[in-house]
């Protein structure tokens, strides 16, 4: 008797424990399901080659979603992430072209691109955390500023990136596609970051800012560091989009900002802060990419594609929120 009454409870508890330990599980299930759907509609799309292509196309969104995650951890939001991506994209393309496109020029431009991303993040952090402006409107204002700066550097899209750069990004190294090295490097970076004190502090600030402050955490510097991370990952995302499109475009990231927020929510993180995972955001970004691909391979008439994508994203967004709440409950 006792066993019978206990079994369902332990099972429910096991499910919750699993969700608690791996909150990104629902996102993972969605990604696998979408992959299978993709394979069903177009078997070819599951080939090694197609998956590599998918990854190199959506790597930028993955990185941008991760950028967004760290500020959302702290209960903030960064509506300028896409604009930072555009700005770094045009800046590195123009610098590479001006310096001749050799290996040295490329590396130097990338280093400056990272610094530029960090500088944008610092500005966001100062206006939101130190000057205490509301994050949504303040980062929207900085996004207008960054977009203006990007237009100043490159008024119209089209300057090509040096061949060395995009050939490396789209090519292979020792027989393995380069984008897998990026993924591996990213995983290591995220692992290292997840072991640092900063991530815990960001989550503490997002969970209860007042409590974090009262227990002695330097709340303002922590939030600024969150925006610095966001700027850094936005710059990394810019490198990937430059490798993928092989050119500079001052407006390339505009539409990606809201997708990055959506990816974070898909991954099960709480927009109110204090709870989430970067792995979830990574999977969330892939979900958006896979939805676009499934809708295409399903043979949806072209005029309906945007609508079906929008509807599918709305549905999985809801699923992400509900699953995230389940795990936290």
């Amino acid at each position, binding site marked *: 008797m006792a066993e019978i009454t206990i079994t369902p409870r332990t099972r429910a508890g096991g499910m919750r424990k699993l969700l608690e330990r791996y909150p990104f599980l629902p996102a993972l299930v969605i990604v696998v399901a979408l992959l299978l759907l993709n394979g069903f509609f177009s078997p070819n799309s599951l080939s090694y080659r197609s998956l590599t292509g998918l990854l190199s196309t959506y790597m930028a969104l993955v990185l941008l979603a991760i950028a967004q995650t760290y500020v959302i951890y702290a209960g903030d939001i960064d509506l300028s992430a896409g604009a930072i991506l555009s700005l770094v994209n045009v800046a590195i393309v123009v610098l590479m072209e001006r310096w001749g496109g050799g290996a040295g020029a490329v590396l130097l431009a990338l280093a400056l691109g990272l610094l530029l991303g960090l500088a944008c993040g610092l500005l966001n952090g100062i206006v939101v955390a130190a000057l205490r402006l509301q994050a949504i409107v303040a980062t929207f*204002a900085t996004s207008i500023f960054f*977009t203006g700066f990007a237009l*100043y550097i490159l008024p119209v899209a089209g300057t090509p990136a040096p061949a060395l750069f995009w050939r490396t990004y789209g090519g292979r190294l020792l027989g393995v596609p380069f984008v897998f090295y990026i993924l591996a490097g990213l995983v290591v970076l995220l692992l290292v970051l997840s072991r640092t004190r900063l991530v815990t502090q960001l989550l503490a600030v997002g969970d209860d800012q007042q409590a974090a402050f009262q227990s002695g955490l330097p709340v303002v510097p922590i939030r600024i560091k969150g925006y610095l991370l966001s700027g850094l990952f936005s710059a990394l995302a810019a490198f990937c989009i430059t490798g993928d499109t092989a050119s500079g475009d001052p407006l390339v990231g505009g539409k990606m900002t809201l997708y990055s927020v959506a990816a974070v929510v898909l991954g099960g993180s709480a927009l109110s802060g204090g709870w989430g995972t970067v792995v979830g955001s990574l999977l969330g970004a892939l979900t958006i990419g896979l939805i676009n691909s499934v809708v295409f391979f399903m043979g949806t008439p072209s*005029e*309906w594609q945007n*609508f079906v994508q929008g509807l599918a994203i709305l549905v999985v967004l*809801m699923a992400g929120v509900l699953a995230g709440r389940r795990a936290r409950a």
Partner: protein
Amino acid sequence: MSRILFFMRQPLVVAFVLIALLLYLGQTLSPGFASGGQVLRLLIVASLLGIVAAGQNVVILGGREGIDLSVGGVVSLSAIIAGNVMNGADSGIVPAILACLAAGAFFGLLNGLGVTLLRIPPLVMTLGMLGVLQGLLVVIRMGIPSGRAAPGLSGFVTQPLAAGIPGIIWLWIMIGVLMAFMLHRTVFGHRIYAIGSNEHAAYMAGVPVRLMRIALFMTSGMFAAIAGLCLLGYAGSSFANVGEQYTLASIIAVVFGGTSLAGGKGGYTGTMAGAILLVILQSILTTVNIDESGRQMVFGATLLLLMMFYGRGRAMRA
């Protein structure tokens, strides 16, 4: 002295002082900027934004991170619906108004249901809805032409109606009066502030919180629909994503009007001033002879500067 200081810190006062300063600046930079006809034109543009911001305002006042990112999509959709229903004929104006209001209310209802029944955060729900609306716009645009505004509607928006002032500005003034009455003199209005400042207390006091929130999102959808209709009258015909810019602009107008994004604090009169302020600022930047890039950088920096006057959060205290 302290009373004067208090007065000077009222968002409404700040907004009007800034509006006067900007008009003066505009007049200095390009003579004729603050002339009667030019000011009327600015007010027409501001009224479009102001009507969208009215809906955004009530959703934000309702609290619990209330925000409506789908208004831009509803504005575009409404402009297309109106253009096709009336298709250049005055007899089609009334059916067009009804169709637009129905569409706005429908998408507002969906937002409200998602936010209340499924407890999806408003930012996520309305962001997803924006994606759906943008997809729907593509579908509609492929199937049918964009349609034309009826002369009666264009006249209402652009031609003087009474006392030399176009109908849309009268409409906006009327909305302003009605909103002030609704917010401060009716039970519905008081309940908005109640759920915005403390949802739980409001619930315990018997306020139907869920119904209220659904009503707020429907209000927002319908205001966006009216704005889309008027926008069609202003532009003559609708074009791709004509309403896109209104989403974040309406939020900024609300913030400049002194309404707190946390909810429960603020009002619509300030939002009207905020909308005018935003439109004048944009207009000055277009009269000044600089590149698009410089214009955007100045616009972004000015927005940040202006935000320093409003709703800065409180410093952390132990």
